[in-house]
Every structure is written in structure tokens, then in C-alpha cells.
């Protein structure tokens, strides 16, 4: 029911009598019903009212001038709008012929004058109630029709084929997507068993989608994802199965798998390559370096003069540089491929260890190093130590030509989501025009004779930072020092 029955809409009752007194007494008798009473003083007037209103009942005097009650009733019945409106004839005497004619015209009852108000009221009340329940039914039917319309619209708008079936799989309803997906017209599919379309369909009420094989009308198959939801109705259990064609997704998944296989193969190849680089490329360098050294050791001063000795020295340092280069390239390839194992790292501690190692290697140098205590980050400990080793190593290296060397490592708050770690020194610095070249492999802004290095270190650093979803950037002024700042992604930041 659309509305609560507490305040039902009033219904209309038409009272037709040429006698004003009769009308008044009818009105008086029916007033207590509290419905709308509309009065007409002639058949013609009654017909006019009938054009405008729908009535729950018509009380019609038989004996009226011009157009009597029967003629009026005939015209009332002739109209579509009022063909079923109950008519009660009011008549002064009992006349069999009248009764026949009246009932023939569709009268529902006769009331004989003088009217007994209680009888009149109870009879009219019955028709009022009838009318009211008819109205309710109509309203309900409308609501239902609207709901069904909505449901069908929804069903058709769904991106999936929707099949509503009985428990045994018989299809009772299908949406328009079904046609396109299965090649059946909607009408064809009704009454069929859903297993014709989805052979392995089972009555499992789960909204978790299952992957099943679906069969089109022409017999071709496609992978489908099916989720089913049960609905208990008066007609029994109905199951709505949403069927999604996942061919495209499957193909994409296969493509991704294929790519992954290719990548894995490439990776394997790359690993084999770097293994062989690491092993075989260095062996000849060892020979060059080693035998040059043995020559220097065993023959200097005898067969070798100072110039020869110097040449050997150059050969050895060239071999050494190439060894370092291979080392760094391997490291670059390693940090690019190594699996990250993220954990909380005491960054300050790692930095302190690196500085200690640098001091140990260069005991004659006096460098003022300040490391902010308590800096932590979520990062791969080995890789982050590679980053700090390179950056602090650079700061150490590029301050080697000044007397009051100063290196600072601290954390800075930034506008960005993550804090920046900042390493600055007062060393050789660099020309800001080349700041963007700094991180490219083999890019060096200083001559090897000034500061040794392979030019791969910062490329390694950048690769590691990128793998941590962070960012690195640098500022520098020639002769005044360099500052490197880097962030690690929010998720790799310590809580």
C-alpha cells in the first residue's frame, strides 16, 4: 500500500433528484459518511457532473421530468468513464417492470421511498468502501508497474548480462546485454536452462565472482566471470546471475604473463652477462696490472729506467681505473635489479660508520663532519648504505683540496610529503649549468687528474633513490661546495 490508511482520500457520491427536499434529506442522511456529496437536480446536470468527476456511487431518482432516471442511467452507462460506476435507483413504489429495466441498465440496487436513512447509509457505505479499495488496488498496481519499469531499466543498464533463473536453472528473465554476449535474442533465451549458456553453472549463492566457461549460440566459448545472488520470492527462489565476458581481461593477463616471461628471460640473460663481465672482463686487467707490477718490482734499476717505470705505472693505473669502472657498472646493474627489502634503518648510524671508514683510509685528513643524530628511514639497508657511501664519499673526495673541510648530513622539512636528507660540503662544488648532467652515467664534471672517479657513482645513487620512489637533486657553486638533497617515498619513511 502506498500510503497509510489513516487519512483516506474522500470519495465522491452523486445525488440526483429533481426534488430539492429529497436532495436535502439524502444529503442529511449521508453527511455522517464525511465523503464529498455532489448534488444534481436533473439527469442533464448529473451527466455534466459525470464529465468532471469519478464517483464511488450514483443515487439516481427514477421519476424526473425531461429525462428520467432510466434514460439518465442509459447515458451514464454509455460513457466509458462511468460504465462501471454503481447506480442506486430511488423510486417511490415497487414496480416489477421498473426493477427489470433498472437491473438491465446495470443498477446495483433499488431504494424505495420513503428513504430510511440507516439503510441508505449502510448501502452507500458499501460502495464507498468498494471504490476505495479499487482505488488502492489501482495505486498499488501503478507503484508495482513503476518499480518493475525501474528494475528493467536497471537490468538493461547493467554492464553485465543478467540472467534470472529458477533454482533448477530455468531462465525467467534476461537483460538486453544477453543478446550481444550470447547471440540469443532475449525471447529465445527465456525458458531455456542457464546451463545451455554456462555449462558448469551451479546453484552457489555467492557474490564472489567465479570464473566459468560460457557458450554462445554458435557454440563458440568465452571465459566469463559469474556472480550470483539469491532472491526469495513468492514464486520460489530466484537466482540472479551476472555474467561478465572476461576474454579481454584474460588476453591482457596472458599478454602480461608473456611479457613477464620475456622479461624474466632477459633478466636471466642480463645476469649471465654481468656474471661473465664480472668474471672474465677483469681477468685480463689483472694480468696487465699484476705483471706490470712484477716488472717494476723485479727490474727497476736494472733493465728499467725511470721512464719505463713511469710507463708501467700508467698501465697499472689505467687497468685499475677500468677495474673500478667495471665494478661500478656491475653495482649499477645490481642496484637496478636487486629486490628491495625495506626495513627501518638508522641512517645516522650508517653515515657515521661510513665516515669512520673514510677517516680510517685517510688518517692524515682532518675533516669536520656533523651528522644529525637519530635520523631513521624505511629503506633497503644495503642500498641506502650504497647511497650514503657515494654521497659522503664524494663530499670527502671533493673537500680534499681545502684545509678547513666541512661536511654536514642532516634532515630538512620540506613542502613535499617527505623530509629531505641533505648532505652538504664546502669543497670543489660544481657549475650549476651542469647540475642535470650530474646523475647520468659516465658524466664527470672534473678531470680524473683532479679528482679520481668513474662517473657512475651518482647514477647508482639516483637509481637507488628512484627505486625507493624518492627524488634527488643537487645545488653547487664552483669553489664553494655542493649540496645534495634526497627524499625517500612517504611509505618508506619511518613512522
Amino acid at each position, binding site marked *: 500500500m502506498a500510503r497509510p490508511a489513516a487519512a483516506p482520500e474522500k470519495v465522491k457520491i452523486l445525488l440526483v433528484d429533481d426534488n430539492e427536499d429529497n436532495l436535502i434529506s439524502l444529503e442529511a442522511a449521508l453527511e455522517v459518511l464525511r465523503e464529498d456529496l455532489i448534488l444534481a437536480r436533473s439527469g442533464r446536470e448529473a451527466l455534466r457532473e459525470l464529465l468532471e468527476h469519478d464517483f464511488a456511487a450514483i443515487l439516481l431518482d427514477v421519476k424526473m421530468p425531461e429525462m428520467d432516471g432510466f434514460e439518465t442511467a442509459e447515458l451514464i452507462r454509455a460513457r466509458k468513464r462511468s460504465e462501471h460506476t454503481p447506480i442506486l435507483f430511488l423510486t417511490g413504489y415497487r414496480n416489477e417492470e421498473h426493477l427489470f429495466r433498472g437491473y438491465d441498465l446495470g443498477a446495483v440496487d433499488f431504494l424505495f421511498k420513503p428513504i430510511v436513512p440507516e439503510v441508505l447509509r449502510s448501502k452507500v457505505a458499501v460502495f464507498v468502501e468498494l471504490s476505495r479499495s479499487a482505488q488502492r488496488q489501482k495505486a498499488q498496481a501503478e507503484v508495482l508497474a513503476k518499480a518493475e519499469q525501474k528494475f528493467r531499466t536497471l537490468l538493461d543498464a547493467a554492464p553485465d548480462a543478467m540472467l534470472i533463473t529458477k533454482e533448477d536453472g530455468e531462465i525467467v528473465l534476461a537483460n538486453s546485454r544477453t543478446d550481444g554476449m550470447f547471440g540469443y535474442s532475449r525471447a529465445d533465451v527465456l525458458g531455456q536452462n542457464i546451463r545451455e549458456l554456462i555449462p558448469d553453472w551451479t546453484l552457489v549463492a555467492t557474490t564472489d565472482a567465479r570464473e566459468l566457461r560460457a557458450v554462445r549460440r554458435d557454440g563458440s566459448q568465452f571465459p566469463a566471470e559469474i556472480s550470483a545472488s539469491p532472491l526469495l520470492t513468492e514464486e520460489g527462489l530466484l537466482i540472479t546471475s551476472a555474467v561478465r565476458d572476461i576474454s579481454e581481461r584474460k588476453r591482457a593477463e596472458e599478454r602480461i604473463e608473456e611479457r613477464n616471461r620475456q622479461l624474466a628471460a632477459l633478466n636471466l640473460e642480463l645476469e649471465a652477462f654481468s656474471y661473465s663481465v664480472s668474471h672474465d672482463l677483469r681477468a685480463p686487467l*689483472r694480468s696487465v696490472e699484476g705483471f706490470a707490477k*712484477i716488472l717494476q718490482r723485479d727490474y727497476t734499476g736494472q733493465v728499467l729506467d725511470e721512464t719505463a717505470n713511469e710507463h708501467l705505472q700508467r698501465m697499472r693505473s689505467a687497468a685499475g681505473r677500468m677495474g673500478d669502472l667495471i665494478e661500478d657498472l656491475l653495482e649499477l646493474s645490481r642496484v637496478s635489479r636487486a629486490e628491495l627489502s625495506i626495513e627501518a634503518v638508522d641512517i645516522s648510524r650508517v653515515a657515521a660508520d661510513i665516515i669512520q671508514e673514510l677517516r680510517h683510509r685517510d688518517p692524515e685528513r682532518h675533516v669536520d663532519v656533523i651528522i644529525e643524530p637519530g635520523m631513521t628511514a624505511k629503506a633497503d639497508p644495503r642500498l641506502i648504505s650504497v647511497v650514503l657511501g657515494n654521497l659522503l664519499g664524494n663530499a670527502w673526495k671533493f673537500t680534499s683540496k681545502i684545509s678547513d673541510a666541512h661536511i654536514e648530513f642532516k634532515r630538512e622539512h620540506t613542502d613535499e610529503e617527505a623530509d629531505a636528507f641533505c648532505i652538504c660540503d664546502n669543497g670543489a662544488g660544481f657549475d650549476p649549468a651542469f647540475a642535470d648532467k650530474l646523475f647520468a652515467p659516465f658524466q664527470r664534471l672534473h678531470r680524473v687528474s683532479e679528482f679520481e672517479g668513474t662517473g657512475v657513482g651518482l647514477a647508482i645513487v639516483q637509481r637507488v633513490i628512484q627505486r625507493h620512489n624518492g627524488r634527488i637533486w643537487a645545488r653547487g657553486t664552483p669553489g664553494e661546495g655542493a649540496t645534495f638533497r634526497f627524499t625517500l617515498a612517504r611509505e618508506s619513511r619511518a613512522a
Partner: protein
Amino acid sequence: MSATAGQQPILLVDDNADDELLTLDVLNNCGLARSVVVVRDGLEAIEWIFGNGSHAGRDTTVMPRLVLLDLKLPKINGFEVLSQLRGDGRTRYIPTVVLSSSTQRDDIEKSYARGANSYVRKVVNFEEYSVALRCLCEYWLQHNWV
């Protein structure tokens, strides 16, 4: 040190002739007068140690005092040699030092997993290599008890 320690040679397993010469140079110059047996692949190493194949008839009561083992070897690689040494009661405790140019984590871990006593990198810098190898030989030949 056992009574026969003086006769026990160092077994050097390396297929690279240059590396062999460089290693021998270090061994000859570190004052540890001792014979060095050189084999050039993994199979020969196994055959020499156990006195079979091309080394059938070798007196296997004399086992090497120290094995210097390259990883990348023809026929049988260094890992396999290690496994066989460690799998035999006669050779289980012979100090074995891996000499390799590889810095791959995997190689280092696999070596130790198969029972290597040390892992020494064959670095390009000969001076550095000499120091490392000399220290190692001193340790395994003079200070360590097997």
C-alpha cells in the same frame, strides 16, 4: 701441525695461466717454502686429490695442506669441487680458500654454504691481492690447526 705438514703441498686450482703465475709469484715471495701443485680444471682437481683418473696411483696419504680454488672452472666448477671435498671424510677438513673475481652475492653465499673456509677476491690491483693472499696463507699454513 702434523708431522707430515712439511710435505703437504698447496693445491692451486685455476684455469687461467696468468692468474696461476701471479698467484705463484705471491706464494713464492711470501717465504712460505712449500711445494705447490697446480691443476687446471675441476675434474683434474678431484682426480688429483682422490688419486684416480689421470692421477691414478698418487699417494693419497698425502693430502694438500691448503686448497686455493677458483670458481669458474672447466668440466667441474668450483662449487662442485667444494661439495666433493666436504662430502668425503678424507678431505672434509682441508682448508679451502675460494679465489674468485666474482663479487656476486650468490657466489659468495654458495661458496660458504658448500663449506669454503674463506672467500678472497681476485682484485685487479696486484699489490692488494698479494697482501690478501699472503695473510691467508700465513693464517691457514702457520696459525691454524686442522
